[in-house]
């Protein structure tokens, strides 16, 4: 008995010591420090890691008074709200969000806690933007809008249609994720297909949301045949993939994540494929050595301009449009169709030489920056 109590006390003391050790490792924050909280839903993807590396290893190094505080993986709206409240408790002045469970609640929480808020990647729904665009704490949004997602899908579909491909398989990634729904709708339209008899964006998008995926029986084709469709990722995904590849489509079009999941299988099957993803090293290898022939991608420093917008807001010089609304600028993807164009974009955006470097960002950080200068910076051709 005594031995057990001794063991127990030893355990408690050890745990307490460990806790105190961790507590003692704390850093004191400088008074003039700008602390920016970053909400993230994806913590391990190559794109997410590249974004983080850009902020922590380039921006924080070049703007020495800036510190980024990252969340762990956020899975729902309650976790997002709680994370923002913790940012406020930790003395952050602003929040950049890469998590989208409920952006309205994120904004409400930021407003309540007097934190500046910006959408790091992607955009608010139109109605949401209307609601919050005049809030002094809403800095803005720079990223692919849903229209841009549709256009990216459309361009990808059209690329293969123009190439004369006669049969394709489509991977819908994580539909009903809105971003993937819009891309998939664009792919169908770009391939010259109809969905449920519709060929207009909104009608196709609405039906895909309703069907929670692409119902192949509703796809109307003119030139290009759809030999197979699947979505999601689980125990049977590769069975579905190999079943579809067995029908010998000429191309495999993905609206996201295919390069993460299926590169080896598609290279092995010798089928050309495409994806909307990022300029990562894995994708570079797939394009130079494999069968990846089309990639619409984000690059790590594409999140630079929104950081600049946050800096202006925190420094008391928020950038607003002529009506006093928050920034809202759609940012296009870069498209690579061969190893050379891929190398051009990826090597131009690495380490200490990102596309949005300090020199470029400094042109829009200041006390008299206009909305138009931001638009020019973001929409300039970076290819």
């Amino acid at each position, binding site marked *: 008995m005594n031995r057990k109590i001794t063991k127990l006390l030893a355990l408690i003391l050890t745990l307490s010591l460990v806790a105190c050790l961790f507590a003692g490792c704390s850093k004191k924050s400088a008074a003039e420090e700008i602390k920016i909280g970053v909400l993230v839903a994806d913590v391990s993807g190559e794109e997410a890691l590249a974004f983080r590396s850009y902020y922590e290893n380039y921006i924080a190094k070049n703007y020495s008074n800036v510190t980024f505080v990252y969340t762990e993986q956020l899975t729902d709206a309650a976790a997002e709200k709680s994370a923002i409240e913790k940012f406020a408790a*930790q003395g952050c002045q602003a929040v950049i969000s890469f998590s989208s469970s409920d952006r309205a609640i994120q904004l409400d929480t930021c407003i309540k806690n007097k934190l500046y808020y910006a959408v790091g990647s992607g955009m608010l729904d139109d109605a949401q933007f209307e609601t919050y665009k005049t809030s002094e704490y809403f800095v803005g949004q720079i990223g692919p809008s849903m229209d841009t997602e549709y256009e990216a899908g459309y361009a990808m579909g059209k690329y293969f249609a123009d190439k004369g491909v006669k049969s394709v398989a489509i991977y819908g990634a994580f539909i009903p994720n*809105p971003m993937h729904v819009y891309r998939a709708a664009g792919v169908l339209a770009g391939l010259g297909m109809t969905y449920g008899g519709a060929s207009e964006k909104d009608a196709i998008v609405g039906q895909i949301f309703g069907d929670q995926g692409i119902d192949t029986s509703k796809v109307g084709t003119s030139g290009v045949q759809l030999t197979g469709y699947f979505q999601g990722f689980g125990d049977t995904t590769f069975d579905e993939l190999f079943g579809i590849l067995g029908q010998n489509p000429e191309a495999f079009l993905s609206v996201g994540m295919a390069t993460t999941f299926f590169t080896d299988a598609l290279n092995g099957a010798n089928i050309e494929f495409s994806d909307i993803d990022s300029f990562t090293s894995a994708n570079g290898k797939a394009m130079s050595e494999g069968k990846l022939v089309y990639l619409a991608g984000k690059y790590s420093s594409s999140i630079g301009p929104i950081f600049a917008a946050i800096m202006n807001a925190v420094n008391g010089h928020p950038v607003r449009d002529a009506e006093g609304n928050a920034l809202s600028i759609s940012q296009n993807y870069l498209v690579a169709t061969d190893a050379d164009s891929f190398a051009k974009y990826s090597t131009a955006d690495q380490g200490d030489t990102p596309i949005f470097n300090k020199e470029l960002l400094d042109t829009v950080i200041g006390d008299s920056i206009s909305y138009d200068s931001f638009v020019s910076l973001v929409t300039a051709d970076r290819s």
Partner: protein
Amino acid sequence: MAQTKLTKKNRLRELLVTLLPIAALLILFGVLCMVVSSRGYRLDMYLRIIFNEGVVLAVVATGAIFIYSLGSFDISLGASTLFSATIGVLVYNSTQSLPLMILTIFGVAVGCSLLSSVLASVFHIPVFVTTVAMMSVLSAVAAQIITTKGGALGGIGIPAAVVEPLDNLPFKLAVLAVFAVLCVFVFNFTKIGRRLKFLGSNPVCAKLSGIKVNVYAIIAFVMAGLGVGLGAFLTLVYTPSVTPTTAGSIGMNILVAIVFGGMPISGGSRSRIYAAIVGGFSYILLNNILKIVIDSGAGYGISQIVSAVFFLAVVYVTSMNYRTKLLPR
């Protein structure tokens, strides 16, 4: 003489194991205060955040104690919470009536719980299996509703102003207290609680004593359903919207909370209502301490690994008392 000494030792050991979860909660609370203060963070805000994070888990876990006391295991509670909240949102958006929304949430939650128990009773399927099936079905249906109705937003919700007046500490504390008192009363002062513990301790003996297993299983699931309903309502009070991932982690967190609270997973006579509340808040405190002290850049998942080590340590300590007995059940 030797017998008396042994009894004293056993009592001391039992007392120690009973008090240990509460002591752990207090230690964790102290460590959190120390860690937050040493970093210069606002303690008042942190305490409010932790209460908000813990209250839903504590409420749902308190109801779940009734199921766990039977030695059963319900993994569908998170999905039930999501489904109840989803239907509640739909009802509010159709009727603009908060009372009707609340009634619906409770009705759906209790209904889902009953369905699990009735399926298990009627078809003689292990409860665990029916709850796994329920989890899949409820999650899928809720996701279908949310994504269909939510469209590009990816979620559905009610206007924040409807529940904003309730999003405060006194209201949530009152809800937790009232539900805990109700559960303590039913569990400790009625024959329902005694028989549930008896069934959990020794189902064969309980059946031979004339206790109807199915009836008490249904009562246990109804109480768990009430907890789920309250949890779903409090979830909406905190974030008045639901997405397919809402309450996704509650199912497993309940298990961890109950173990942290010092209750054996096998249920039986050592089941305690307070285990859910003590364990729920201990778990949330531990998570927050780890998130503060472990730099997120050090590697994702480290805090989960440390939590798992704590979990194993707690299971070891709480099992000290009954591992050595001849007839543990």
